[in-house]
């Protein structure tokens, strides 16, 4: 009786496990992260699946965000659509996979996305775990604070609290170089702004591009430090060893997209309105992967 029961139990557990794994339909295109049949990553597999899985943020306006109607928009999104159009002939054949900043490497490593286009800054550390494409955007760390108590240099941060998003370049920069700055680590980008506006943090450090556009929309806040640390580059990324897709995207950036000045064009349509007047496209855009 006992053995029978144990056996039955094992079977039920197993059935429940596999029943769950296979029978549940994906809930909405933006959520499903199921792999295409026959290994993932290679161009053939993406074509066979008929859709490319692109990692993206849903709250990183104006680079990549979800509009009120649920559609994805922004600079990074435009690149993703273009890649899908070139590769699959249709810019709607994309499975958007949304995530938080700290999970980007894990999503690539565990094969849950083919291409990461979620405002991903190139760093040496990350380059050990994922393969970056040619860059398409420049960025450095900025610090936004209230106009009433502006933070204009790192010295101003003494004894103040600074919000950062876990796992971002700003997080790494302050942890390494200024360990005495009190950090409030939050996951979602929205939470960083909320920490600042509700006074839980005196300042918020993120990519300067992101903060400049936010400060333009939010009177009373100023990007007191607009270039900190090294100039960094934003690039797409693929799982380590997925050279097929890597080369495909690189060829596209160096060739076709450069010829038509694609990134300048999408700067005009997605980013221009978000930045201060004196800002020019060349301060942000990297065309053809050329970084000088």
């Amino acid at each position, binding site marked *: 009786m006992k053995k029978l*029961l144990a056996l039955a139990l094992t079977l039920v557990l197993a059935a*429940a496990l596999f029943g769950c794994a296979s029978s*549940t339909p994906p809930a909405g295109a933006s*959520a499903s992260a199921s792999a295409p049949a026959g290994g993932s990553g290679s161009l053939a597999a993406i074509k066979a699946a008929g859709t490319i899985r692109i990692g993206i943020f*849903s709250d990183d306006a104006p680079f990549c965000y979800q509009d*009120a*109607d649920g559609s994805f928009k922004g600079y990074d999104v435009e690149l993703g659509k273009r890649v899908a159009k070139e590769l699959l002939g249709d810019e709607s054949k994309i499975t958007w996979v*949304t995530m938080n900043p700290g999970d980007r490497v894990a999503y690539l490593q565990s094969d849950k996305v083919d291409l990461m286009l979620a405002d991903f800054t190139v760093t040496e550390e990350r380059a050990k775990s994922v393969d970056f494409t040619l860059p398409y955007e420049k960025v450095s760390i900025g610090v936004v604070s209230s106009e009433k108590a502006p933070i204009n240099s790192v010295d101003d941060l003494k004894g103040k609290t600074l919000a950062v998003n876990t796992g971002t370049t700003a997080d790494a920069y302050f942890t390494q170089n200024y360990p005495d700055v009190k950090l409030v680590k939050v996951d979602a980008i929205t939470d960083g702004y909320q920490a600042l506006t509700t006074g839980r943090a005196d300042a918020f450090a993120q990519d300067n591009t992101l903060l400049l556009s936010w400060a333009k929309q939010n009177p009373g806040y100023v990007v007191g430090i607009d270039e900190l640390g090294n100039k960094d580059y934003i690039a797409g990324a693929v799982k380590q060893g997925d050279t097929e897709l890597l080369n495909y995207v690189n060829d596209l950036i160096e060739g076709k997209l450069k010829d038509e000045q694609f990134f300048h064009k999408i700067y005009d349509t997605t980013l221009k309105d978000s930045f201060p007047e004196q800002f020019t496209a060349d301060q942000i855009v990297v065309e053809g992967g050329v970084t000088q």
Partner: protein
Amino acid sequence: MQNLGIDNILKSFPRLLDGIAVTLKISLIALVLSIILGLILGIAMTSRSKVLLGVLRTFLEAFRLIHPLIWLFVFFFGSANIFHIQIDNVAVSILVFTLWGAFEIGDLVRSFITSLPRSQYESSMALGLSKIQMYIFVLLPQIIARTTPSIVNLATRLIKTTTLVYLIGVPEVLKVSQSIIQVTYLRNPNSYISFTMYLFLLIVYFIICYPLSLFEKYLEKKVLA
């Protein structure tokens, strides 16, 4: 009025409904599966086999003491990294919450069975019922009556805890709301949308969970009466 962001909430209402549907779907499927599994586990936990008991006990403590969020990450990334199987994030959520619920219910069932007077087993034997007949006709009706209030309570906890699944990328109602808040701020920085949106969420969760809570109270009264 404009600043409350109600227009945006209305505009994105289908997405919010989708989010609520995802929340309810995960909770409901997990609940049904965990009731079935929990009953079996509970009976198994009254077994005299030391090995079986040890294994079940370990799982019970693991699912009780370790936060569901950690299980979500373990299953979501672990399945892909170690076994190279891609499990859809909704499926992972259902799996984790099913196991969590099953062990909770299992323990309830176990503690109820062990608290039953010995005479029930003896009378069943005396009536000539087989062990399986005893479980089905004598014990099961009592188990169901006694554990139902706790199961309803588990259901409300399940619905509330499913907000965690947004951390593995499931677009449930909280994540959808945050995305709407962000896009509203982008267009209108002075908006009170975060207040309106979270108030809306509060009402949604209340509407779903309060009837359950009332139902639980009603059941408790009935069982005790």
